[in-house]
């Protein structure tokens, strides 16, 4: 089994779908000739030609809007918005058309498109190149939001996303792109959207994370183990649909919940998870749940981002607080 990093695993999924389905087109800013600023699509234009894999004008709204047009006309566009911080010009298309088309046409028109969206901080990038706005996107009815944390999951989830009948925001943790390799099957496989994964089972606390924060979470869980704390770690994988069932099962076992993400605290993914746990499993909780997240500030520039991005030590601190609370 080949060892792949996240970039290679995503590319492997795109390669498979381009070869497997003529309706699949891959496009965006710089994705063709150059292979994308992160080289995720490198070599695909050469292999599949300029009709299938192409560069677009520098205009996010029409990249998404034209994607919708192609999708209603029977294609399966897989488009790239270069950075999460560049999605804003396309928000009108996402909110007023892409997410609504199926419902407002009562299923007569559907939008099976995938938007690949590199997101997240910790890479000392320029302003607006480090955002983590998944909560904003997951708030829009009609969209699915998927965030892999490993090469293996990325390939299986992306193939499922491209085969989904619904529009999917496939958010790629930039910090993980080349961070590590993992054995990834060369052939195609699928991981269902909307299913979280219990990465490590534990007994005392539940820690929920996703995307780039999964690496931080894993390190924190190791540190916690050294302190004698048994933490159950869940990788969400899908932000919407959210796998409430897996979360509840874990919390009912451990009685303590912490949610970790990069994006701002208020109205975020952690808030939603905690609300759901409160609704369905409040009486199993032995301590108030905790949010370990970025702040309600703009993403700081590189000299400040170490404060904003949760670190394993900060997560450990929060886990210890959570554990010691109301014992």
């Amino acid at each position, binding site marked *: 089994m080949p060892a792949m990093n996240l970039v290679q695993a995503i590319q492997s999924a795109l390669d498979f779908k381009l070869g497997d389905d003529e309706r699949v087109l891959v496009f965006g800013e710089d994705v063709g000739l150059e292979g994308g600023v992160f080289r995720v699509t490198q070599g695909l234009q050469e292999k599949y030609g300029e009709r299938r894999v192409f560069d677009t004008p520098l205009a996010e709204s029409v990249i998404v809007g034209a994607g919708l*047009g192609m999708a209603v006309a029977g294609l399966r566009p897989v488009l790239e918005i270069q950075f999460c911080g560049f999605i804003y010009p396309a928000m009108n298309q996402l909110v007023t058309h892409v997410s609504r088309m199926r419902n407002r046409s009562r299923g*007569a028109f559907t939008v099976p498109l995938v938007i690949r969206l590199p997101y997240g901080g910790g890479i000392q990038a320029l302003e607006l190149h480090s955002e983590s706005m998944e909560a904003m996107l997951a708030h829009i009815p009609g969209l699915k939001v998927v965030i892999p944390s490993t090469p293996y999951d990325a390939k299986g989830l992306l193939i499922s996303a491209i085969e989904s009948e619904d529009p999917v925001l496939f958010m790629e943790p930039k910090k993980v792109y080349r961070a590590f390799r993992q054995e990834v099957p060369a052939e195609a496989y699928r991981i269902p959207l909307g299913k979280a994964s219990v990465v490590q089972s534990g007994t005392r606390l539940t820690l929920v994370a996703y995307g780039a924060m999964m690496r931080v979470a894993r390190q924190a869980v190791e540190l916690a183990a050294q302190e004698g704390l048994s933490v159950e770690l869940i990788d969400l994988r899908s932000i919407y649909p959210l796998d409430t069932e897996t979360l509840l099962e874990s919390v009912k076992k451990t009685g303590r919940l912490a949610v970790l993400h990069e994006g701002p605290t208020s109205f975020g993914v952690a808030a939603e998870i905690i609300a759901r746990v409160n609704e369905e499993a409040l009486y199993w909780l032995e301590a108030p749940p905790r949010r370990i997240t970025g702040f309600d500030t703009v993403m700081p520039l590189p000299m400040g981002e170490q404060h904003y991005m949760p670190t394993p030590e900060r997560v450990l601190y929060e886990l210890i607080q959570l554990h010691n609370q109301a014992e």
Partner: protein
Amino acid sequence: MLTSYDPLKGKRLQILAESGRIVNRKHLPEWTDEALVEAYRLMLRARVADEKALLFQRQKRIHTLPVNKGQEAAAVGSALALEPADWMVQSYRELGAVLQKGGTIRNHLLYFKGSEWGSVHPGLPRLLPLSVPIGSQITHAAGIGHAIRYQGGSEVVICYFGDGGTSQGDFHEGLNWAAVFKCPVIFFCMNNQYAISLNRRHQTASATLAQKAVAYGMPGIQVDGNDLLAVHAATRAAAEHVRSGQGPVLIEAYTYRMGPHTTADDPSLYRPKEEEEEWAPRDPLLRLRLHLESRGLWDSAREDESRAAATAETDAAMREVDELHETPLDEIFAHQYSDRPAELRRQQAAYEAYLQWKEAR
């Protein structure tokens, strides 16, 4: 023809003058008398449906809706230049085009009564639902055109939007994309002189909207939008150009919104009565009727008969829609996603429990 009416030189294509006289034989569409009469009937049908819809809104049988009056020639003339297999991307003021495509007055009324089903005209998979956010649908037309080209199809897309729509970023992005990729799209701008209250002269400093095509590297032409023949001839030429793989075309139909923006609007707040009076004799129906009558193809009896038929059709459609009431709860949840996520099922069940509680109380 697309090149002989240079918008930068202030040219505007007109074939049928206000008097009903043909003033331009060179570009006269080859239409049989029957086809011309049919086109007039369709315009009249759209006019009647529009007038009656306004009345129905006043009777509170439907809600706020946009008013089409004055734009029937632009809508019908352009739609008649296309094939059934072609795509139509609507704004929301092209009732005549939608009817020509095979859409129904019933669905028009149903949508504005408040049902999503009104958006979906049965058997018309290439008529997109109307688009509320201004100009945003322009990018969809580019994408559909892109798909057609990719699939090697010979269909074209017509995309309607207004003068206000040309100020949107999506106008720029959509036209630019379509031109870069030579997408088979006719961008059809209904310049009705107003975006709600804003007069066209405040919308852009460009002398014409058609001339914006020049910057995108596509032909642009301004036509008298109240002249069925000019609209039709230009759209036909555009369709040929576009279908032959030469890329998109921009048409500006110079027309006038004779009514309010919507039933909730009061034009007396922002435009002088004299202006409306000035446009009244340019009414697209009036001009075509004069022409048909001068050729012995039309008379008062036929006018009354057609008007009565359209009235009866609209009344019957309204009565049918009157019978439709609340959207079933399940429908609200059924179409948001292809598979109903567990969270949606939970929300639905919780609301149903409330309904049962209310029922039992």
